[in-house]
């Protein structure tokens, strides 16, 4: 139904800064640069993945796209509408086109509301469909996500983690949104259930032509789900590519390190000599240092890395990286030795 150029979500130079409380009366207010100039587009019907370690700003990006945190600067377009600029009732009315699935199935459902009412609420709040048909619609949503209609009467604590996540998915589907933001939807589940939920998400995407913005720190999950992937580090995108080239030819040293950190049962992969092990923690996102933010942990860092901020530049078709050391021919530093 959609061509390649049909862009559903466009994020331009998105910044989300949180101001910190002043330590004392005369100190300078400091800012946490949670998301610091992020650009990406998501074509309709595709899945766009954001990966990174904890604190890289991927969840904040998701919440900013959903307008659940204050956007400091930049634009977010859903279709032709600048949702970053909407306020009040206009924003509220726009919300039915974008929905979110949360990470923690335990805190994402109101413990005092029955599952059926949780799924019905978006229909009532956003006035979706005829009042008379809403009960029927809730039953249909329960069937779609693999729950039985009689489970509508249960409270969230009477479900297992995977079933709760299904309720969360049904809630997100209720208003027939174009975009669903999946904020680590399977991280809190055990592996067997993860596969079921991921398969459900893919089946729903095929059936309804959904577009996903998929946040995860699990590269295996991202590889399974996403068409395009952006790697975030300390509030910025350091590499952006389609799934195949990111996993076969990672360019940024950080992506390289992430991929080599994936546990493997295969001894040939486990004992490869070109694995990188990162030391230390990322620098503080409070007023971050100039230059490349990965420089302090990068095994290949040179002096210019901590002085000059590398721009995200396209190396080859659809594959962009923000690193001084990647040659214009697309040879990453880890291959130049």
């Amino acid at each position, binding site marked *: 139904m959609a061509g390649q150029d049909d862009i559903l979500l466009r994020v331009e130079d998105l910044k989300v800064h949180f101001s910190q409380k002043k330590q004392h009366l005369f100190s300078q207010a400091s800012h946490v640069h949670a998301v610091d100039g992020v650009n990406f587009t998501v074509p309709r019907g595709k899945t766009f993945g954001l990966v990174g370690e904890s604190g890289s700003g991927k969840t904040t990006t998701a919440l900013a796209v959903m307008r659940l945190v204050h956007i400091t600067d930049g634009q977010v377009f859903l279709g032709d509408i600048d949702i970053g600029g909407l306020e009040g009732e206009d924003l*509220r009315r726009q919300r039915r086109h974008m929905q979110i699935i949360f*990470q923690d199935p335990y805190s994402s459902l109101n413990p*005092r509301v029955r599952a059926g009412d949780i799924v019905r609420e978006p229909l009532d709040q956003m006035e979706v469909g005829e009042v008379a048909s809403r009960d029927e619609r809730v039953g249909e949503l329960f069937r779609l996500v693999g729950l*039985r209609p009689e489970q509508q009467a249960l409270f969230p604590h009477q479900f*297992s983690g995977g079933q709760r996540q299904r309720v969360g998915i049904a809630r997100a589907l209720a208003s027939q949104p174009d975009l669903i933001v999946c904020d680590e939807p399977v991280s809190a589940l055990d592996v067997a*259930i993860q596969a079921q939920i991921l*398969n459900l998400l893919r089946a729903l995407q095929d059936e309804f032509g959904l577009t996903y913005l998929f946040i995860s720190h699990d590269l295996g999950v991202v590889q399974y789900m996403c068409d395009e992937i952006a790697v975030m580090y300390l509030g910025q995108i350091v590499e952006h590519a389609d799934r195949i080239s990111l996993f076969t030819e990672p360019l940024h040293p950080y992506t390289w390190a992430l991929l080599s950190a994936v546990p493997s049962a295969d001894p040939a992969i486990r004992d490869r000599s070109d694995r990188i092990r990162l030391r230390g923690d990322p620098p503080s996102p409070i007023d971050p240092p100039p230059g490349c933010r990965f420089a302090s942990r990068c095994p290949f860092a040179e002096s210019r890395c901590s002085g000059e901020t590398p721009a995200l530049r396209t190396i080859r078709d659809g594959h962009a990286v923000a690193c001084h050391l990647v040659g214009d021919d697309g040879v990453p530093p880890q291959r130049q030795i």
Partner: protein
Amino acid sequence: MTDQVEPSAPAAPKLEPDFVPEVEKPWLQTWRMFAKNRAALFGLVLLSVIVGMAVLGPTLYPADPYDIVWAPQSPPGTEGFILGTDYLGRDLLAGIIYGSRATLIVGAAAALITIVIGILVGALAGYYRGWVEELLMRITEFFQVLPPLLLAMVLVLLFSPTLVTISIAIGVVSWTATARLARAEFLRIRELEYVKGARSIGARNSRIIWLVILPNAAPPLIVSAAFAVGIAILFEAGLSFLELNDPNIMSWGYMIGSNRPYVLESWWAVTFPGIAIFLTVLAVSLIGDGLNDALNPRLRQR
């Protein structure tokens, strides 16, 4: 605990078709926990007796507590006056029975005012943060540093002492603790994902505050309300002791205050109203404690 249903075949659940886990209503579960607590049940029975006395007592024992009926300072048991008479010869039992009305009405009304102001201030401060929180919390601190009994006395003296002004005065001086508690609960719950979820499905602020966060913040606030009743009763007794009571309605605190100079000659005239206050506050506190346990999800498993 695994999912019973394959995503590809949602129509073929492996469970038996009639299997739906029991759904116990939350308030029923709370009652079950409460009823297990003997002290709390005792408190409930005691409070019921006191409320019964306030409602039915004047009908069953129609005596005016202000009437002088016998010799002053008659000891308990004299001529059928079970609790004796006070320094003016007024029937103490009639005083206790009528006094329970003032106590319970002021206790309930003042606690209601306390809770309403406290939740309103705490909810708005905790939900909106920013300058709203700064302003409301500075006001709260202002009220916290004033000595509450003195402030209540001033308020009652400014307006004539009636049940209404006394209730308002007590409510105005004692809402601060509830406000801080409500704010803390709102600060905690507003960060939970189901609140973000409510916003993302288009719920308005008023709905999120009153219908999403408040019900989940309710358990500690209910407990705080129960204790507020006890505190309000003590305040009412204290004000009446200082003769800041509604002169048309007998009150236990007033009975103690007015008989205080004669405590050596007639101990019973101050002791029985004192016991009445003690038992009422005890009953309310036991109920509050029981609610605290019954509403605490961590203790529910026991």
